[in-house]
């Protein structure tokens, strides 16, 4: 069952859009591409100041006790304006893991900082192409974590990470304080994602949850993040669709706006379809948190949002012609972001399998 946004939720969307459009622009984002480990300070300061970091966390630890629907609305707007840092999603994932699976002491230690945004969290589940490895290449033994986690989004800036590891041959989620941990920067096509390889060499780590339940917990956290990311992708796709439309009504060729040519207008109409399908799946998925079909709904949102953002990035650049591929116009910021978001929280292959396992009744 999908939902309609209520007045308060609509106000969140309007206000976050207003603030972000005033404070984030491509001229500040472009230089970040050529710097490793730099993110848009203004974006993150805004997220903290506006309470977005606290939005979906419990009140007892400084949160605002709203949910995935509200965070999704913010993420959608962040996607429109190309959020300058990945922490809105990664902090949410870490905080949710601590809130759902952590002890009272762990919650008291980490949640207030994550809610205020003073603490930055990162999720480190994947092993290369494997978003949720059955046999993670990191080991937890005697409260110490060893091994490397590659390509961790936010890893260069994070203070704390939730790591999928194995303990006694079974999966385990470990909470690790990252101070003093070796981080190897990944020079990426989307550098403000602050991606790093994290090397653990007997680092002190606390267990959150162990055994088969840890794998299910990791999938749940990944799905929560995937729904936030899907909103962000949909926002990016929507912005690109509008940019393409605006260009097509002003740019003229052969004596008429290029938007009068069906090869252009149909392409933009197709984008409209992809954006609306993604939006509808996002709204549905956000509203299904806590229900039996949440993973299925999250997967559908993830698939349609990835498809929408990818298609919008390709076609918007194409419709612009030569100007579209220039550094200055910045459409490549969206191209890059579409790619990084397509990979973060598990790629299409991962979510297709998650979805079909459930549809075919093969899920664990």
């Amino acid at each position, binding site marked *: 069952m999908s939902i309609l946004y209520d007045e308060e939720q609509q106000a969140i969307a309007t206000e976050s859009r207003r603030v972000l459009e005033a404070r984030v622009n491509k001229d500040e984002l472009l230089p970040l591409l050529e710097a490793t480990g730099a993110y848009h300070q203004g974006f993150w300061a805004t997220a903290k100041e506006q309470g977005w970091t606290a939005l979906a966390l419990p009140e007892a630890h400084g949160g605002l006790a709203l949910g995935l629907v509200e965070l999704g609305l913010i993420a959608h707007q962040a996607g429109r304006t190309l959020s300058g840092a990945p922490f809105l999603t990664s902090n949410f994932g870490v905080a949710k893991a601590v809130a759902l699976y952590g002890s009272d002491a762990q919650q008291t230690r980490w949640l207030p900082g994550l809610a205020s945004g003073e603490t930055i969290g990162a999720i480190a589940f994947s092993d290369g192409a494997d978003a949720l490895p059955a046999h993670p290449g990191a080991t937890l033994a005697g409260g110490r974590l060893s091994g490397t986690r590659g390509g961790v989004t936010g890893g260069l800036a994070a203070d704390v990470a939730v790591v999928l590891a194995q303990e006694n041959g079974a999966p385990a989620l470990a909470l690790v304080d990252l101070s003093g941990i070796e981080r190897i920067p990944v020079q990426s096509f989307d550098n403000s994602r602050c991606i790093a390889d994290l090397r653990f060499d007997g680092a002190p780590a606390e267990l959150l949850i162990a055994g088969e339940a840890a794998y299910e917990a990791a999938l749940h956290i990944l799905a929560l993040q995937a729904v936030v990311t899907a909103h962000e992708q949909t926002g990016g796709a929507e912005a690109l669709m509008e940019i393409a439309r605006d260009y097509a009504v002003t740019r003229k060729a052969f004596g008429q706006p290029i938007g009068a040519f069906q090869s252009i207008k149909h392409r933009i109409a197709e984008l409209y379809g992809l954006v609306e399908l993604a939006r509808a799946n996002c709204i549905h998925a956000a509203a299904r948190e806590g229900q039996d079909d949440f993973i299925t709904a999250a*997967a*559908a949102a993830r*698939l349609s949002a990835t498809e929408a953002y990818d298609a919008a990035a390709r076609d918007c650049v194409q419709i612009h012609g030569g100007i579209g591929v220039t550094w200055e116009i910045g459409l490549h910021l969206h191209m890059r972001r579409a790619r990084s978001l397509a990979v973060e929280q598990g790629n299409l292959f991962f979510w297709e399998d998650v979805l079909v396992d459930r549809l075919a009744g093969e899920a664990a």
Partner: protein
Amino acid sequence: MSDLEAWRARAAAWCESMVPTFGKSARKGLGVEEDLALGRRYQKAKFDAGFAGINWPKELGGQGLGHLEKIAFEGEEMKHGFPNVYFGISLGMPVPVLMQFGSDRDFVKERVLKALQGEEIWCQLFSEPSGGTDLAGLRTRAETDGNGWKINGQKVWTSWAQYSDYGVIVVRTDPTVPKHKGLTYFWVDMKAPGVTVRPIKLAGGDSHVNEVFFDDVKIGDDHRMSPVGGGFAVAMATLMIERYVATDSAGFGPHLDLFVALAKDLRLNGRPAIEDGRIRQQIARNYAMRAGLDSINVRARLMMEAGMTPGPEGSLNKLVAVRSRQKLSELAIDLQGAGGFHFDEHASQKEDWASSWINAPTGRIAGGSDETLLNTIAERILGLPQDHRPDKGIPFNQIPA
């Protein structure tokens, strides 16, 4: 339970009770004429049970309820494959337009009651050989004839014309003005002298559409349903009436569950097809697309329930669902390999992949082609410019043929 839920439950129970008499197994093996006869009895039963003309005024034989109740009933009805297809156009467009624009109210009431009970069927005579998408380019003409009119010309793709008692028709009454301005809207008696109906057999084997020829067909001016020259606006109103209908994210083809079941049953290169990545990707992408349409449809219903107008994204359903049904049906046939050759032209498009496949192009063309829908989205929703139209503003009889 809300009133609407209670209504839906009553509709579901009634539909369930009709299955033995009118359901798929009752229809199996019937020829079209027999099936139509069964359909007429079904329509009468529907009328007697208070499920016909749900959102039509009571004084004309309807139930006086809203489109929410109508959609709820249709959602239940759709599950059972009842023989209601013969009345879809009739009760969907021509008869509502007659209710709205017919001048002789006693005549209107009599026709509406007969149509609601399945006794009479109406067809819609819009498309022509020279104009389907370009409706205003039509050439069938009506000339004044005494106090009335005389119609000459040809219509085409007219659904159920061979079983229709009446039809609504748009014709050209003035070729000297630009094309949209020279049209007038009438109703006609399909049994009148000079009307010839010739069924067209379609690729899938059925013949529900027709050519309709008009040779000096004389009608009175009381048949006129628009001002002279004001027919295009009534034609547009006709097409807008069916805005609120139950939609189907499967594109009126098989449910995705049937494809999943097929993939679980079959083997591909020695391995279960359901484990093949190519098959899994198609299942996943189709599911995501259909789930998106379902969510759009649910939200449209919630908006109507809240007294709001649903967003324009509802227009995506036909475009997106039918063409993906076409591809999925191709894939389902291919997947069965040499076991997929079987074809039964009477099989249900909602249950049989070959039937779904062969009939899918009709769904992408009838009632607004994919290309027309894309134009509509681009122009009406996104504000992109209209296509270049060389015939714009030119008197119809001066447009180069």
